[in-house]
């Protein structure tokens, strides 16, 4: 049997917990910065949550500047953007009311009719709908987090549940912070991505916790720090393998999946990396707060 896995040390023995203070400080800083960014700079809300109109057109022999000139004479709040290809242009407009938007789409279409080969897509989200969508997205994320926690609670001891909450909150905030810096559009698909990241990160955490629990039973005398290190090392190659295959698929989606899906793929890539990091460096060290064994108190 061949396989590169023989090149990776078979029984890695890395002292992950030895570095826990450094990583803890790093993560706390990252979270604080993320919270500041989210509250000050904010997220780049797409029309799903902000409301407004979006029209995607493909053009021929027309520059984006030309279109901008035509439209900005009629609309002050119009913004145009090339969308993956110089012939494909995304037009965004803010609308005040539902009625206005219908007229806007019609008149925009009339204004640029002769420059456009195809109207590829037009979306309009009214003000009531956008706030409903935001609310439902928030609900979905909260309920998912709660449901996942209840599951962990049922399957493990409550201390593990605590570790999982800390790691999940960390992942969600950190990802949102990066989305804010990178100005990635925040849409319904982003909510889907964040939920999937939550599921993925927990998945990673659960695998390591599973091993911690097994080792707690197996090595009754082993020092907790060593036991946690051992558990992380036991599952390390799986953690790396799964993250890599998932990232391979996501990078392929990011590069080849088309412009519309790109923000989703990017969010997932960020989330998978953060989720993997947090399972090892945040979730497990959190367990040290708890005394799993009475005799540890004498140490």
């Amino acid at each position: 049997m061949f396989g590169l896995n023989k090149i990776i040390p078979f029984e890695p023995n890395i002292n992950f917990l030895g570095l826990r203070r450094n990583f803890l400080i790093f993560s706390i800083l990252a979270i604080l910065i993320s919270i500041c960014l989210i509250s000050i700079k904010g997220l780049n809300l797409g029309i799903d949550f902000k409301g407004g109109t979006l029209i995607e057109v493909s053009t021929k022999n027309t520059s984006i500047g030309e279109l901008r000139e035509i439209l900005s004479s009629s609309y002050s709040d119009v913004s145009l953007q090339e969308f993956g290809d110089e012939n494909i242009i995304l037009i965004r407009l803010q609308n005040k009311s539902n009625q206005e938007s219908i007229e806007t789409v019609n008149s925009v279409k009339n204004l640029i009719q002769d420059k456009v080969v195809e109207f590829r897509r037009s979306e309009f989200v009214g003000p009531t709908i956008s706030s409903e969508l935001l609310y439902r997205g928030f609900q979905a994320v909260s309920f998912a987090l709660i449901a996942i926690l209840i599951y962990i609670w049922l399957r493990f001891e409550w201390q593990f549940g605590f570790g999982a909450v800390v790691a999940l909150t960390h992942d969600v905030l950190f990802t949102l912070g990066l989305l804010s810096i990178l100005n990635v559009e925040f849409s319904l698909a982003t909510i889907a991505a964040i939920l999937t990241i939550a599921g993925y990160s927990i998945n990673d955490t659960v695998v390591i916790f599973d091993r911690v629990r097994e080792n707690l039973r197996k090595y009754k005398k082993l020092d907790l720090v060593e036991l946690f290190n051992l558990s992380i090392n036991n599952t390390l190659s799986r953690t790396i393998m799964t993250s890599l295959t998932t990232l391979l698929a996501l990078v392929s989606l990011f590069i080849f999946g088309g412009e519309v899906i790109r923000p989703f793929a990017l969010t997932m890539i960020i989330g998978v990396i953060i989720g993997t990091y947090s399972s090892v460096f945040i979730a497990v060290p959190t367990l040290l707060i708890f005394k799993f064994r009475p005799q540890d108190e004498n140490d």
Partner: protein
Amino acid sequence: MKNYPIWKSFTVISLVLLGIIFAIPSIIYDENSENWFLKNKINLGLDLQGGSYLLLEVQLDVLYKEELDNFADSIRLISRDKSTKIENISLEENGLIVSFNDNNKIKEIRDSFFQMYRGLFLQINSNKLIIKLNDDYKKNIQDSAIKQSLEIVRKRIDETGTKEPLIQRSGKKRILLQLPGVKDPERIKDLLGKTAKLTFHIVDDENTSALQNNLAPFGKIIVSDMYDINIKYLLDKKSAVGGENLIDAKGSFDQTEGHAVSFRFDTEGAQKFGKVTTNNVGKRMAVILDGVVITAPRINSAITGGSGIITGDFDAQEAADLAVLLRSGALPAPLEIVEERSVGAGLGADSIAAGQIAAIIGMVLVCIFMILIYGAFGALANVSLIVNLFIIISLLGTIGATLTLPGIAGIVLTIGMAVDANVLIFERIKEESLKQTKVFQIVKNGFDRAMSTILDANITTLIAAVLLFAFGSGPIRGFSITLSLGVIASMFTALMLTNFLVYMYLSFANKKELKL
């Protein structure tokens, strides 16, 4: 084949075959096939096949206000009967406050009014009668308005020739439309944006002072012209006949009048129309559509045949659309478009192509990686991965789920995550191989030990996917469906198919030792 039960091999092989066979309809994708088997293909969402999604909201406030206006008219009539003067009628958000000059007969007025409209909240406060629309009353108005609106919307959409539209109520006061393959969403929005309430009224050309003061006397209304809002007409408030009596309307062309709409009344409408035109020869008759006068021709002679034409400044399309609106009837209240997502066929096709490329490349990368790391075992996991993809496709096709662009993303993501279960198993096998030398025992222990971890890990992902389905809308639901199916299929392929393949491989290769 050592210790591998026949029934287990049989189950695995038949499930895999079923998975592959039922993926065929979606892979061939013959759109018009009537064959029972080929019909089990994936439904493409609007974002992939092109089409329009519209969410309409019934403007109930307009209806409530209309109802309150009716109440006000009834109160005026009743109080005139009881010879009591009304001082003031004020329109509140949810009701009316009627103040009378004296409160002698206020109870009688209340009782007569109550005879006409039961179920309202009525209250007397010295000389004031307070009328309120309570929640039950409103709910009745709301339900019947939605029901009627749905019917009218359906008729109008049918007139446009859209194939397989989905039209359904959504929540309390909304209507959801999915219109596959619609090329001109603007025309549909135009058609749905009009209430199309048509009425015929006799014009009062004698009372010129009313128009000058812009103050309509009791029983009359002032309405402006469709093409020039400065032109006003004083009309009888009560319509002579309305659009509900129409049985047909068609766009027509007249040498002198240009494009017009010809219409025909039912028997009742024809009688009413005949009577009014007979009694009002020489006067003008205004045709009102959605609160504006389209035209107001003079009645030269009684029209008893029950048909006529409406002329206006129409072009052919406008006349045809007006005919559609009149044929399908008036909406009880205006509809407002609160959300629209229209995708052209070009973008849909591009998305499918891009999704396919991303899936194939992702798959190839993951497969290469697995072989690099795990060698022969990696190749076995790859067989499982490919079967996994077939199973997702066949499940999507047979349960009639809709594949959307985020759904494709879910499939690509699953490709990356599906090998996880295999990896968990292989890593366990690797550990077990250090402890003992019996090949089949190592494999058995590896699978058994990995089982609970695989279940725990996948159930958390499933929880997230299910909640996403519950709270998500349209395309996002497509993502949660493919993700859930992918997760379930990956558990099956890892725990059963990979298991089977590993046993087969070890039996045939006659391995005496296992080093992973």
